[in-house]
């Protein structure tokens, strides 16, 4: 019998380590099947003004009831704006998890570390389960831990680029140095990249664009679910060491025509 490997976060015991998003789907009607195929138990949403001419979008009707909702603060350019969005999101009555995104750079959508730490401090004090999107910087990570973050979400590459784990070495350092869970967010473009992040010891991955914009989002969701699981299992099993020179896998004795007691 396999041991259960749960990820404790914000009072939940998650059995899936793949978080998904709801952005960029050609058809939001795919979302329930994507949740099912990926096995994901945590899903992100954004908060926006109601379109006064078209009425309110209702992405919520596509999200299965068992999912933990992770609203983001996208659109916030300062800590104060992120705090305002987080409070509004909580007023929706869908829980107290919040993914902090504070971004004022529109070209690369890189997170503002200082403002992110400030927002984390305020929201953690107000009882939110705070998951900040961050640059994989050790000092920012430590500040976020001190500020009360429940986990940190370092980027692999800029949002929506599908460029993979460009920040691999920095994420490796965070995994090594931080006791907070590390959820790799942004930039993961392929299941193998998600698998690699998990093999490195990341606690979870968040994937949106790579699933939502795939030719077959449901098939891709399943592939990501399996990849994250495979990577996690590999990490738990303990990877073999890497060597510069060959080390034979087969015995180096008992060859044909070999003389007894010597070569």
């Amino acid at each position, binding site marked *: 019998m396999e041991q259960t490997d749960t990820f404790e976060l914000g009072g939940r015991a998650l059995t899936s380590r793949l978080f998904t998003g*709801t952005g960029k789907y050609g058809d939001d009607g795919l979302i329930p099947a994507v949740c099912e195929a990926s096995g994901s138990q945590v899903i992100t*949403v954004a*908060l*926006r*003004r*109601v379109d*006064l001419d078209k009425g309110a979008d209702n992405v919520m009707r596509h999200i299965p009831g068992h999912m933990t909702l992770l609203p*983001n603060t996208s659109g916030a350019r300062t800590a104060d704006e992120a705090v305002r969005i987080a409070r509004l999101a909580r007023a*929706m009555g869908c829980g107290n998890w919040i993914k902090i995104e504070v971004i004022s750079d529109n070209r690369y959508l890189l997170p503002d570390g200082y403002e992110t730490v400030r927002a984390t401090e305020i929201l953690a004090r107000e009882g939110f389960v705070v998951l900040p999107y961050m640059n994989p910087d050790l000092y920012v990570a430590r500040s976020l831990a001190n500020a009360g973050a429940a986990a940190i979400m370092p980027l692999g590459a800029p949002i929506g680029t599908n460029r993979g784990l460009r920040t691999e070495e920095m994420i490796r350092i965070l995994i090594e140095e931080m006791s907070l869970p590390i959820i790799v967010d942004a930039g993961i473009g392929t299941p193998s990249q998600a698998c690699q992040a998990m093999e490195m010891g990341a606690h979870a991955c968040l994937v949106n*664009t790579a699933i939502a914009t795939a030719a077959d989002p449901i098939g891709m969701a399943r592939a990501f679910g399996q990849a994250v699981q495979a990577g996690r299992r590999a990490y738990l099993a303990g990877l073999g060491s890497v060597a510069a020179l060959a080390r034979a896998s087969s015995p180096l004795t008992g060859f044909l025509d070999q003389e007894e007691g010597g070569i």
Partner: protein
Amino acid sequence: MRVIVNGREMMLDGGLSLRDLIASVHADPAVVVAELNRNIVPSSAFSETMLQDGDRVELLSFVGGG
């Protein structure tokens, strides 16, 4: 009365509640969160919250995002 809703100036009849306003923009009050003059109004108070001239209202809902 003049009310700013989501940044748009609207001329509205007096005696309008927040719930009436939400219905008038074809939004479902169950999926909308509202701010009146920067204060969050719980959905349970939409009906009893009457709008005043000069109010600033924000109506938001969850949308797809990553």
